């Protein structure tokens, strides 16, 4: 119970820090948002118009008042209007979130499911096929740019073989390739993590005890090492899950998916600060959520410890 209160307090603190960062966006930027707004709207940039916008948005009030006012409106769901689309920022996000969520979490879940058997076999047989394959996948994920491999996949599957119609087909046609791409870029690293965790287990005395009781290495890894390795996998997946929703700009641009990341990219291009603010807050809230879920899951896997941060 006490730990729950602590977690909540920590989450509140983090959210507050994120709100300070988001608030600083408006005031730390080199250009005046009112001028950018006027230029975007094709209206003349006169000192009077700028002053009127400042008054309308409350930008001439003291900083503290502005912050309290902004944070208050943020909490009740008034995130401001996007310059570019003239729609409420919150609505824009909510409309784009499902697609980003689907390809991100779907891709990662697929990667984790593939990483477990791959890491298991890699630990069973060092320098075997699974070990080499996971190692190669991890290196390639670092070296081959995702937008290029995405284009190559597109070329082979959609242009040469015509198996998929990623731009004109239904949602399945649209979502298969991005989900696969995200999975492909995570599976190697996750398999390496799983393998390393299993190897750490193999170095423990109780692994030898397990072997002495007559278990084969495979059985020992499966029965006793799995929990240990899953713990590590969950720990490694935590930042990945925190990232994958809203952090897949490359994939979304390549496949033309109308997701959160692409929206952010387009908004930054025209300096739509309100969208950037909303994005920072939404990401912070999502990461705190993921972190909380991860702490809970890790406690369930290993009740002995309460993981630090």
């Amino acid at each position, binding site marked *: 119970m006490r730990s729950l209160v602590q977690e909540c307090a920590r989450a509140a603190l983090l959210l507050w820090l994120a709100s300070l960062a988001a608030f600083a966006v408006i005031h730390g930027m080199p250009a005046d948002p009112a001028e950018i707004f006027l230029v975007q709207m094709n209206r003349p940039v006169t000192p009077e118009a700028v002053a009127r916008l400042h008054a309308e948005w409350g930008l001439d009030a003291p900083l503290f008042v502005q912050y309290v006012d902004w944070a208050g409106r943020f909490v009740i769901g008034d995130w401001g209007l996007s310059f570019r689309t003239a729609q409420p920022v919150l609505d824009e996000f909510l409309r784009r979130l499902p697609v980003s969520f689907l390809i991100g979490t779907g891709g990662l879940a697929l990667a984790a499911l593939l990483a477990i058997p791959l890491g298991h076999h890699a630990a069973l047989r060092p320098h075997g096929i699974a070990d080499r394959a996971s190692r190669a996948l991890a290196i390639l994920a670092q070296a*081959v740019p995702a937008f*290029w491999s995405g284009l190559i996949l597109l070329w082979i599957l959609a242009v040469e073989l015509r198996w998929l119609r990623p731009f004109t087909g239904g949602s399945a046609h649209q979502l298969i390739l991005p989900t696969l791409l995200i999975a492909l870029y995570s599976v190697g690293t996750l398999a390496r993590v799983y393998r390393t965790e299993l190897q*750490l287990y193999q170095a423990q005395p109780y692994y030898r005890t397990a072997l002495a009781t007559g278990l084969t290495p495979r059985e020992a890894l499966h029965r006793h090492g799995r929990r240990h390795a899953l713990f590590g996998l969950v720990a490694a997946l935590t930042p990945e899950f925190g990232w994958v929703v809203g952090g897949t700009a*490359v994939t979304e641009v390549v496949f033309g998916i109308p997701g959160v990341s692409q929206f952010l990219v387009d908004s930054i291009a025209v300096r739509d600060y309100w969208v950037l603010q909303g994005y920072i807050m939404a990401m912070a809230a999502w990461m705190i959520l993921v972190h909380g879920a991860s702490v809970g899951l890790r406690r369930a896997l290993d009740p002995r410890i309460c993981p630090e*941060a």
Partner: protein
Amino acid sequence: MAWRSALAARRRWPAGPLVPGLLGIAVLLAAGALWQPYDPAAIDLGARHLGTSLAHPFGTDQLGRDMLSRTMVGGGYTLAVVATVALVSVALGTAVGLGAAVCDGLARAALLRAADFAIVMPSLVVALAITGLFGLTPLTAGLALGLGGWGPYALLTHALARRAMAQPYVRAAQALGVGSPGILLRHVVPAATPAVLTYLAADAGRTVVAYAALAFIGLGADTSRPDWGAMLYEYRAFIFDAPMLMIWPGLAVTLTALALHLLIEPDADRLAGLRRMATDTALAQATGPGGSPPPRAADKPLTGARPWR
């Protein structure tokens, strides 16, 4: 003879023979900063979409520009970015790391927290925001990526410095009255340099891909400037008619990044060990001595290794 054994390890490694060839490619591309066979911006509408020939080994694009020349210029830009990132992140990271090693109490905690924060911060968003605001040039991209990437260097330097400062001969020097600057320069920096350089090589490979991704997403990117990423963005429209156009720049990114990764691959396990040590030392600072949990490779990974997807 540490370098001799390192060399032998490289020769034993199965892909070792590839490394000189890959490095040769990288050097050739970097040389593109100084010289190209043709003017990379010269438009020749009479020579559009030429295939591979002796005159144009990579062919020409939709405006008749020589692809080899464009790719070589892109290599020069990439080299500039890699150099800037290396300079910024190493300078900032080692300064913070050494500072944390020398300081005590609150100052150390604050510096390590700052490094943690820099690691957790979404580098893609930071880089997008900075390059979106100030335009995408090799210099701004280098600064943006360097500012997003100094965290691991700080943790690494801190851990190595702490270890070096615990050595008896360093203690002896301290007892003899050598001050902090002397200790750092004479004993700590030489002890930390090899590890930092190894990490730098891994980082350089990631930087090549990250810069290409930034140029591909193309905020404020100048498509007339032949960055590899910008070229891919431009040529992706010809995926149906001239897929070779997107092969060359993508191959350039991949081979360069791969060369850098394969160069340090024999040290991969050592690198993983360094990472673990760096995070463990930082964690020990946060939790205090005693009650250490069982070893977890992935508890707090140095997440600079995440690919952009």
